[in-house]
């Protein structure tokens, strides 16, 4: 199947044709259906946003109110300054772990992909098969031996197990993705550069990588989203609240609904929104490439 457009979008019909089409009853039904779904997806998000701007009284009002009388934007400042629930620290922890994980994955997966795509050496195919085979194993299988390994290294309750592995190839998916894209670039390009006296690192960095922007952005977004949202690994490795990432911290927050008798439900909603924002921003920053990558994985996979 060929992808004619990088991103599936509806092509706007000429104005007159569209107006005539809208008048048909079947179109009206379609609009009603799409708006119904928009409500189903939009309402919970909007409710949470509104809940994060309520006062305590409005939070516990019965029957519940949807819109706060006066939006309490101060909730977002207050949620960052609760001593027992250091949301700001958790956000920072998750942010720097996400940055290091993404950087490590993109750099090392490209290097390994380059090696698999461009060089022939003994055992290359066997190594590639082993790499692919790890894709079929669920993370749960490797989680326990990894935990034992990091325990022996004395890395429990540090952030190291969460980002250091990304610097060792970044996982089979990234390697496979990069290899496939390296293979799409004609070898003539490498050879021409080689004749001009470029070294292999130079070819990798200055000739090939600039051509691989779409898969690199795709890989960076997938990795960043997964790392930012990750819960299963940090919950295993981190014990003390000052080490938590935002996901683990948010769960910790849920379990301590008040401080000194003051309910924090509205602040929890603010923390919830704060957790979502970076994910949405990461997505929109590279949406064009990302959607293309997802679609290609589905159609060629």
């Amino acid at each position, binding site marked *: *199947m*060929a*992808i*004619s457009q990088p991103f*599936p*979008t*509806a*092509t706007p*019909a000429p104005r007159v044709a*569209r107006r005539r089409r809208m008048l048909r009853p079947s179109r009206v039904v*379609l*609009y009603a259906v*799409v708006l119904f*779904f*928009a409500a*189903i*997806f*939009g*309402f*919970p*998000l909007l*409710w*949470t946003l509104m*809940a994060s701007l309520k006062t305590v009284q409005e*939070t*516990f009002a*019965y*029957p*519940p109110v949807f819109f706060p009388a006066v939006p309490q934007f101060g909730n977002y400042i207050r949620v960052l300054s609760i001593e027992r629930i250091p949301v700001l620290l958790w956000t920072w922890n998750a942010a720097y772990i996400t940055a290091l994980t993404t950087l490590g994955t993109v750099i090392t997966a490209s290097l390994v992909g380059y090696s698999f795509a461009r060089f022939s050496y003994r055992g290359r195919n066997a190594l590639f098969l082993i790499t692919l085979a790890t894709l079929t194993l*669920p993370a*749960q*299988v490797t*989680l*326990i031996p990894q*935990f*034992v390994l990091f325990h022996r290294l004395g890395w429990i309750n540090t952030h190291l197990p969460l980002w250091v592995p990304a610097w060792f190839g970044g996982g089979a998916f990234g390697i496979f993705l990069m290899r496939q894209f390296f293979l799409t670039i004609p070898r003539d390009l490498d050879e021409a550069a080689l004749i001009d006296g470029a070294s292999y690192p130079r070819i990798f960095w200055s000739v090939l990588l600039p051509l691989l922007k779409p898969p690199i952005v795709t890989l960076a977004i997938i990795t960043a989203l997964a790392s*930012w*949202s990750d*819960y*299963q690994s940090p919950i*295993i490795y981190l014990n003390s609240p000052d080490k938590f990432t935002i*996901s*683990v911290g*948010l*769960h910790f927050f*849920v379990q301590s609904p008040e401080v000194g008798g003051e309910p924090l*439900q509205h602040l*929890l*909603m603010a923390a*919830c929104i704060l*957790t*979502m924002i970076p*994910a*949405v921003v990461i*997505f929109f920053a590279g949406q064009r490439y990302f959607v293309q990558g*997802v*679609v290609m994985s*589905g*159609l060629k*996979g």
Partner: protein
Amino acid sequence: MFWPSLGRTFVFTLMFVPSAIIGSLALALLLNQKLKGTVLFRTLFYIPHLIPAVALTVLWMAILQPRMGPVNATLRALGVADPPGWLATQDTALLSVTIINVWAAVGGNTMLIFLAGLQGIPNEYYEAASIDGASAWAKFRKITLPMLSPTIFFNLVLAIIAALKVFTTAWVATQGGPSYATWFFVLHIYNEAFQNFRMGYGSALAWILAVILIAFTLAQVYASRRWVYYDGD
């Protein structure tokens, strides 16, 4: 807890996979109708998929809160005297966790892949069918479904794998409860390995999961020969 958690995971998979696949396909068909504002709707449908799982669960815990949540408030306003307890009661917790996961999944990558698959179907097929006087339903059954079958197959495999690995939503929302109602297989692994520190037993459980996943995938690859149609290649 081994067999019950495994059984519960299969029940979840049976509820989740058809809802997610049919829902995603329906949304993709809807977005493929060239309605005004399609890009906006597609983005809105996709956002739940972007939300980190813990934030997603916290959000839904507020929505489904039995006393003050908007769902039950609406139900009471509509005259339901005794609305369900959702995540808080044993008989509705599993359904609630399923709803949360379906809501997060239907507008996500599955839908995008369906949408791209739909746009890969040559328009001439539909035109030819229209000339022959085929109904919309016949076109869907005889053109869309067969042409889309490789995409359906791909999404189906991924959805089943994802469903069998369900963890975070259930663990954050209910800690596997109430009364083990959402105690899924991966929760069982997590509990044995990292709460009871039975690493060996946990590893064995994880390998059983791996074997189940691989068996499911191979079975689908085998079964797919009967229903997946590859055009051209």
